[in-house]
């Protein structure tokens, strides 16, 4: 009789233990479903973002440069000769500038918000002024986070030659750059006609280019 009672008790305890185990399993399942899955989704998004942007930097986009003038503290003034220069071109090869015709030289950095508006605008103006030699100089590329020069050029479909400054910013320093973008208009003799720092705007630039080509 005592043996039968024990067996019943044991059975009850076994059933209770099984119930508790099943509840524990269900709780664990619910926890994984409610917290584990969404956490994994968020972690996967973060991981993909990290991996894709890691390769995006593509190393420093700098070139080898030569420039005829020394480093200077202030922007070139009207009438001063613009320094001749040569540098690695973004697509490979070399880009150089020397006096020979009216020119526009725009110095910019890919992370600078105003440059991101102005450089595509200047690029769009080029077909309207075929007699003006236009060159842009990308510098200070790694000073702040932002798009790469090649990524930006590709996104915006830039067609003007892009000279890559070196890591020391030799071109920018020889051109007296204090802010981005800086746009110089240079006459056929190589003298600075106008210089503008920051936002110029399409209308004003068109007018200045008209004057440059008329002179």
């Amino acid at each position, binding site marked *: 009789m005592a043996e039968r009672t024990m067996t019943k008790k044991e059975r009850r305890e076994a059933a209770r233990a099984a119930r508790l185990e099943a509840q524990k399993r269900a709780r664990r399942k619910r926890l994984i479903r409610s*917290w584990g899955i969404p956490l994994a989704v968020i972690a996967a998004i973060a991981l993909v973002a990290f991996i894709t942007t890691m390769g995006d930097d593509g190393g420093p986009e700098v070139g080898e440069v030569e420039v005829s003038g020394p480093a200077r503290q202030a922007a070139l003034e009207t009438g001063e000769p613009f320094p001749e220069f040569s540098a690695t071109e973004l697509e490979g090869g070399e880009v150089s500038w020397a006096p020979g015709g009216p020119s526009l030289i725009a110095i910019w950095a890919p*992370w600078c918000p105003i440059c991101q508006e102005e450089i595509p605008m200047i690029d769009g103006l080029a077909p309207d002024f075929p007699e003006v030699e236009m060159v842009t100089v990308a510098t200070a590329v790694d000073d702040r986070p932002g798009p790469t020069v090649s990524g930006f050029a590709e996104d915006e479909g830039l067609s003007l030659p892009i000279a890559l400054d070196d890591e020391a910013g030799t071109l920018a320093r020889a051109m007296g750059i204090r802010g981005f973008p800086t746009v110089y208009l240079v006459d056929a003799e190589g003298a600075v006609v106008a210089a503008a720092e920051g936002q110029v705007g399409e209308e004003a630039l068109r007018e200045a280019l008209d004057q440059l080509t008329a002179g």
Partner: protein
Amino acid sequence: MAVATMRAQGRVLRLLHLASRLALGGLLLWAGLAKVGDLQGMTLSIDSYQILPEWSVRPLAAALPWIEVALGAFLVLGLFVRFSAVASGVLLVGFLIGMAQAKARGLAIDCGCFGAGGPGEGVSWFDILRDVALIGVAGLVLLLPRDPWGLDARMDRLQHGEET
């Protein structure tokens, strides 16, 4: 009578839960979708707050809009609601810290809350108060009794049905 009152209260709380999760989810979806695909803008926006190390800015710029979209979608669908409420709250507290320090330092930046930021007139008190209000909404989603119209509730009902 008391049972009827309690039932009515429960129904109101569940409706409030539904409204809170839809409002928070909708806003996160909107904010995320407005920024997805604009890596340049997001990079400038995050960098303009000047609090994060440089190496972290681009990965965060790429991830943040998608995280907002994912959390927004979860909340609108009523899926993983408690997790999404906590994660949204953490995200919003992070935004609040960023905006408060930008305001305190007088940084002339746009909040970049619903699109690319960068240079601007400065973070406004409205931006900060809206963020605080959204943290409150996330709290409501977390603490109120769950509404029965989300996928979580449906999945639970299905599972319960299978078990019984």
